[in-house]
């Protein structure tokens, strides 16, 4: 309805004032009438009505001159003048008829435009819904992510973890923040309802929903007492889990489910559109702590709502001051500063650049398409030159003639816009199906009113661009009647217009091709980097142990060893191992450490590393290369030897220029008599670096691998910082048969150990590698498609222009050939003239690209935005395509028989 009202504004004010309300009323009645007649009828009525409104707006605006003239006539002629009144409507009808009579022209123009508009609308819908549209929370601009930085470690931001200690400090004392909440995510096992299932769970403070200002769809969220250590275990379901596991039963609130072996009461269900922190989370439980026993470990992520009128800068200043105050009591908080950022930026900032660049690329494609369509219209208008001249001679005004052409352009644009909107809708559906799951807010993407408005704006813009170009070429009165009397409609001026269009197409296509070439090269480099491990033919999956049943590290390690034994007995399985954290899986467990024999230097940042607890030979099974010493073996793990393997980054960083073998390191933590002592760990091997977060990390992170039998566990306090908790482990299985054939055997093997254990995240190592580059490959693919379309359209444009020139000059060529010109000379003449235009276009394109490719620098990996190889290869490719597009018509010109050519006169 509002869309209709909005579109109504396109029509002149007087009409709107007099009839706007009445039209709205009539429209509303028609829509409500159509609503009962089903989806199809409704969309037909909608589109008819909108088209009618557009036609009204157009004809009212462009018909204004006609109406004035009519009034003047009315004074001369008495009697009813109804016949003269629909000049504009008539013009539209006539134009429509002319277009229907030339279906090939109309379809070619409308499809070219439609495709380009579709690409623009689809990408715009993504940009709008993901980047521009505020997050789906009230006053979302006041939501911030509590990001931190450690200037002393050269880290300005990006540390999104914080401790309970800081949470309470902020909740109690921050005046710039209206409300603070913290959460963390992890996996949990749901048992008792069918097959045990591993779920993604978020543990959040009760304050989370007051920060976000949303309410559950059913039941309630957590209350204050449930967020206190020892509070009753309660859970809130996601809409998806509720539908999937509980059949959408509204009586689910108050029922009990078993989460990691603990009976947990369901207190609420969230609305379908709620997905915080991301759409993978299916269950929320209350994070529990108390001020007295608050942990100093960085295990939480924080979000907050700024108080009304508070800037993010003042919030940062206050948070930094509160951290400094806290660090007097809690030493490990020293040196941390706030880098709080708007939640939306934090969420989509990474992909925003890529999306804007994509939108720019498809915008260029639209320009190329407009140039092509303008070309088509140019040809069309010239074949009409005589008709126009006759009209002018009979007294048609310049405006009247302009309207004659412009009406056609507008109709073609409308058709293109309609095709574009339809195709864009299809594209968005495909994107929702196959888009990269790492794209944030993917599920929010749709063609909404804003995207429709954008389509209309694009359509109007396109009309103006390609509608006016032929108008500029309208000959002044009289010229066309006596000029060109031999049927040659073309003139020198229109040649120039056409050549400018051709050159522009070449330039635009080159810019896009360059961008896409750079992306492809950078993607190749990304995929060619040394991973440091071997991703092929390896199956991975995670197994979580319910703490209620396996309450000690010893029990957990025994089960893992049992599982490893049974897995290695499966026929076709060559090697099995397990770890707390695979490559590319992110931070997992990280901690600072002390190197034996290195005096503590307060000026130097502490050594630190990502810690992984592993079973025997893990580093060998995932295919890390052994650079020194040995891998951890079975007896290290069985006997709980205090030995570790480190990676190259660790060795180079903390033992530069010397061998780390037999040196000792120890987990670093504040002294506390109540916690078990941390042992010294002897380094026995050095392995190759593997990526921690993403492919192509600028600097590899130090990693340390310890036997799982000496790491952390359910009976070891987390504050002891012994090592990562071994209750949840990820298995790696190398086999001589395809990994996908192993799923059943794996399930059976684990059932033999304990049928209540859930398996999750079953995938191959190769999947993990592919996934970490899928966003890059997605962007690359879309830009490559845009570039290909631009190249094709450009080639068609060049071909069309050169063919047209050849056709226009058939007579002249005939004379030349008759006078004895070599066919080769004729071809060279045609080619030569086009070559000048193409080279000019390429020059402009290269200059533009040289300046513009800086924009995509942030998307590139391992390649300069001015990479000479890409520039040369792309230019050669474009030259080749342009040459073929010119050569085909040139050859035709050369093969003309002089007789035919002259007869064509």
């Amino acid at each position: 309805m509002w869309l209709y009202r909005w579109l109504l504004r396109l029509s002149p004010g007087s009409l709107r004032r007099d009839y706007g309300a009445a039209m709205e009323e009539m429209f509303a009645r028609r829509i409500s009438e159509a609503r009962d007649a089903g989806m199809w009828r409704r969309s037909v009525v909608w589109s008819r009505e909108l088209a009618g409104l557009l036609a009204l707006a157009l004809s009212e605006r462009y018909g204004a001159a006609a109406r004035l003239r009519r009034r003047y006539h009315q004074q001369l002629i008495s009697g009813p003048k109804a016949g003269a009144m629909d000049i504009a409507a008539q013009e539209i009808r006539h134009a429509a008829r002319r277009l229907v009579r030339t279906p090939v022209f109309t379809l070619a123009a409308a499809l070219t435009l439609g495709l380009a508009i579709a690409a623009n609308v689809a990408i715009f819908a993504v940009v709008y819904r993901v980047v521009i549209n505020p997050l789906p929370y009230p006053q979302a601009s006041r939501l911030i992510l509590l990001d931190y930085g450690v200037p002393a470690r050269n880290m300005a931001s990006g540390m999104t973890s914080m401790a309970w200690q800081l949470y309470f400090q902020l909740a109690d004392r921050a005046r710039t923040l209206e409300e603070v909440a913290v959460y963390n995510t992890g996996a949990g096992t749901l048992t008792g309802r069918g097959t045990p299932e591993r779920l993604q769970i978020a543990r959040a403070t009760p304050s989370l929903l007051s920060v976000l200002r949303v309410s559950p769809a059913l039941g309630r969220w957590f209350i204050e007492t449930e967020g206190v250590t020892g509070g009753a275990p309660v859970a809130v379901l996601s809409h998806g889990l509720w539908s999937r596991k509980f059949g959408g039963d509204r009586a689910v609130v108050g029922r009990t489910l078993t989460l990691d072996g603990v009976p947990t009461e369901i207190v609420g269900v969230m609305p379908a559109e709620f997905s915080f922190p991301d759409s993978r989370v299916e269950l929320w439980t209350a994070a529990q702590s108390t001020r007295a026993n608050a942990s100093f470990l960085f295990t939480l992520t924080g979000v907050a709502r700024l108080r009304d009128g508070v800037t993010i800068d003042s919030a940062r200043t206050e948070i930094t001051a509160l951290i400094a105050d806290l660090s007097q009591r809690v030493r490990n908080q020293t040196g941390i500063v706030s880098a709080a950022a708007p939640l939306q930026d934090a969420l989509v900032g990474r992909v925003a650049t890529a999306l804007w660049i994509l939108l720019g690329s498809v915008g260029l494609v639209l320009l190329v398409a407009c140039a092509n369509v303008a070309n088509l219209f140019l040809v069309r208008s010239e074949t009409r030159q005589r008709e126009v001249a006759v009209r002018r001679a009979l007294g048609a005004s310049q405006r009247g003639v302009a309207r004659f052409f412009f009406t056609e352009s507008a109709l073609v644009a409308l058709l293109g816009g309609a095709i574009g909107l339809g195709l864009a809708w299809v594209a968005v559906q495909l994107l929702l199906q196959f888009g990269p799951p790492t794209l944030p807010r993917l599920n929010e993407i749709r063609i909404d009113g804003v995207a429709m408005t954008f389509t209309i704006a694009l359509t109007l813009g396109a009309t103006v661009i390609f509608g006016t170009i032929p108008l500029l070429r309208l000959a002044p009165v009289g010229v066309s009647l006596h000029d060109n009397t031999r049927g040659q409609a073309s003139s020198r001026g229109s040649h120039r217009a056409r050549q400018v269009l051709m050159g522009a197409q070449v330039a635009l296509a080159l810019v896009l091709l360059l961008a896409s070439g750079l992306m492809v090269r950078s993607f190749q480099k990304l995929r060619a980097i040394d991973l440091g491990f071997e991703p092929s033919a390896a199956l991975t999956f995670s197994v979580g142990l319910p703490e209620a049943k396996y309450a000690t590290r010893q029990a957990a390690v025994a089960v893992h060893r049992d599982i490893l034994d049974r897995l290695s007995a499966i026929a076709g399985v060559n090697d099995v191992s397990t770890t707390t954290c695979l490559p590319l899986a992110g931070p997992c467990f990280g901690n600072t450490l002390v190197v034996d024999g290195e005096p503590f230097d307060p000026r130097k940042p502490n050594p630190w590393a990502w810690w992984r607890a592993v079973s025997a030979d893990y580093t060998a099974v995932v295919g890390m290369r052994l650079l020194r010493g040995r891998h951890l073996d079975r007896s290290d793990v069985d006997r709980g030897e205090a030995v570790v393997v480190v990676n190259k980054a660790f060795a180079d960083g903390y033992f530069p220029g010397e061998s780390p073998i037999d040196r000792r390191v120890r987990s670093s933590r504040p002294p506390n008599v109540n916690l078990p002592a941390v042992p010294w760990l002897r380094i026995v091997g050095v392995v190759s670096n593997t990526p921690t977060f993403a492919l192509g990390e600028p600097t590899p992170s130090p990693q340390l691998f310890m036997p799982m039998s000496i790491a952390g566990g359910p009976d070891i306090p987390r504050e002891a910082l012994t090592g990562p908790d071994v209750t949840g482990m990820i298995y790696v299985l190398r086999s001589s048969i395809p990994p996908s054939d192993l799923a059943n055997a794996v399930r059976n093997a684990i059932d033999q150990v304990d049928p209540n254990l859930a398996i999750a995240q079953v995938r191959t190592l190769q999947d993990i590698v592919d996934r970490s580059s899928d966003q890059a490959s997605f962007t690359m693919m879309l830009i490559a498609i845009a570039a290909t379309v631009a190249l094709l359209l450009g080639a068609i444009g060049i071909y069309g222009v050169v063919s047209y020139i050849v056709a226009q000059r058939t007579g002249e060529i005939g004379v030349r050939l008759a006078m004895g010109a070599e066919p080769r000379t004729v071809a060279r003449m045609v080619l030569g003239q086009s070559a000048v235009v193409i080279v000019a276009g390429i020059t402009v394109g290269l200059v533009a690209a040289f300046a513009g490719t800086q924009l995509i620098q942030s998307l590139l990996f391992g390649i300069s935005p001015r990479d000479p190889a890409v520039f040369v290869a792309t230019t050669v490719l474009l030259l080749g395509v342009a040459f073929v597009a010119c050569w085909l018509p040139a050859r035709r010109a050369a093969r003309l028989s002089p007789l035919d050519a002259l007869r064509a006169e």
Partner: protein
Amino acid sequence: MNDTDPTPALPDLVFHVLLALGPGPSHGYAIGKDVEEQSGGRLDPTTGALYQVLRRLTEEGLVTPVDGPGDVDSRRKYFVLTKAGRRAAAQEAERLAALVRAARQRKLYPQKA
């Protein structure tokens, strides 16, 4: 273009709108329905097209807006034929009748039953 024709034919839609207003005042939605029925579904003007015609007819003085019955949606606008409107409709009907007569004389159209 018909600018200089002294008694041009009325466009189809215009004549139908005048016909729809023949029995008395009516409003946009009802006029649209009537036009669709009268023309046997051949004409089904969109809201925009219909109001464009109504506006032109108002400007030409062939129809004029009037107050509707008090009990309906206040946004709704009622229109009624003016004298000139009736005359224009009659002229068009006469023109069509003359055409029909001519067609009959030339044996292009069956005689009255």
